[in-house]
């Protein structure tokens, strides 16, 4: 009885950890690419607006976006099939954990861009000049100056992404209609089931478990945030 809930927690943690790491690395790269452009340019305006939409608005719409892309009759699936590749040979993976990883990454990267851009903006050009003036290469600058200054901000953003993925519900709910691989979907089953009545207490217990995880993560985030503001303001 209890094993399925424990499994769901483990899978939820895995999903959040994988998408947080992938999302924060890709998002940091994208934020860097945007920040090296003109501060008032079109690229930056479009990327930040699009990031705002995809990070906050997502939910159900993203599930359908990926259904249209890599679903059984999606665009990519069809193009691959025309070239003799069966993307669904491993089963309907989009409706299972791998599919969730892909879709979650799609809203994690934009969130990383939003939260990491201010940190990159805080890097002062003088630091770069000082490093170069002292004979440092671009590598030494990133390794010895920018890296250490950005590290707390990066880790903090990573934790924020983790909490974001852990508490997400809408995308998974719209994508996965059978089974409940992660905790939020377990809660849905308990909350809406017409077969198992009187499971409210179990739903509340799972909910409390989620709050504990998110609260711990956010507390670490607050600590890192304090450290971040020492250099970047």
């Amino acid at each position, binding site marked *: 009885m209890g094993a399925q809930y424990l499994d769901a927690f483990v899978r939820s943690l895995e999903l959040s950890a994988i998408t947080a790491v992938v999302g924060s690395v*890709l998002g940091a790269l994208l934020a860097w690419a945007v920040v090296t452009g003109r501060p008032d340019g079109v690229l930056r305006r479009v990327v930040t607006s699009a990031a705002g939409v995809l990070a906050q608005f997502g*939910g159900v719409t993203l599930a359908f976006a990926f259904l*249209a892309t890599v679903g059984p*009759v999606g665009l990519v699936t069809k193009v691959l099939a025309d070239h003799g590749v069966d993307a669904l040979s491993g089963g309907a993976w989009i409706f299972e954990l791998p599919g969730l990883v892909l879709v979650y990454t799609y809203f994690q990267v934009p969130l990383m861009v939003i939260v990491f851009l201010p940190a990159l903006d805080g890097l002062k050009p003088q630091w770069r000049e000082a490093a170069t003036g002292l004979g440092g290469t671009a590598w030494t600058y990133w390794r010895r100056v920018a890296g250490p200054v950005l590290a707390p901000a990066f880790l903090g953003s990573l934790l924020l992404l983790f909490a974001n993925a852990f508490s997400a519900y809408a995308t998974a709910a719209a994508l996965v209609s059978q089974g409940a691989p992660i905790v939020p979907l377990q809660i849905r089953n308990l909350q809406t089931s017409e077969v198992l009545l009187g499971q409210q207490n179990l739903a509340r217990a799972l*909910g409390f478990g989620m709050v504990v995880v998110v609260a711990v993560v956010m507390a670490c985030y607050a600590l890192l945030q304090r450290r971040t503001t020492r250099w970047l303001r």
Partner: protein
Amino acid sequence: MTSRVVRGVVLTVLGAFFLLPLVAMADFSTRGGLSGGRDLSAWRGIASDPVLVDGIVTSLELAVLTSLLMLVLLLPTMVWVRLRVPALRRTVEFLCLLPLIIPAVVLVVGIASLYSWVTYLLGDSALTLVFVYVVLVLPYAYRALDAGLDAMDLRTLSEAARSLGAGWWTILLRVVLPGARTAVLSACLLTVALVLGEFTLASLLNFPTLQVAIALAGKRDAALSIAVSLAALLLAFALLLALSVLGRRRTARSVAPVALTSGGPA
């Protein structure tokens, strides 16, 4: 030189990753059935689907109501805390940020039993969702308004207004509101975006909002729900882009006088 190449590669690869699903949505929603070719029947179907239209109307009404309630609740509180009880500022901030720590799906578990009372007292209209939505938008609205109030000298302005005989209402409506109008606008736009995109609470409390209608439509007509999804995404994107352009114009105007007075040959 290498950094230019890396930058180009990053922008191209991630750009493709983010555009591909949108292109696929446009493709999927315009497929012409078994005969092949293109047609727009899915897009035309949006207006003729009563459930979907109801959902859109409900969500728009909720967006307006939530924005209003958020402002009525938050703006006077924040002004009052700043002017009269600054010691409470941290507490109010923490309370407003709490919804970030409590996942919406957990909130629903706690609030479901409470909502049977709301339904009992106010009827089972979907508009009662406004009460939870106000809680959900608190963190975003708080930070937007907080930045706006920080940017204006609230104490001096309110004391000036008071000494000219203005009451609290006048201060709120004729000093604070115009002074923080960009912040108020951005708080409202964030609220609208969040309400139009919200699914978790509406679906688990069984209220037919836009996102619930989309998810429902997806069970019988995928093309239709993909068309609505794309339309909703593009609408939200247009809203945020408009906000960022608006924000730029505002900063350009407020920076200019400083530049004029603080430099250059006299």
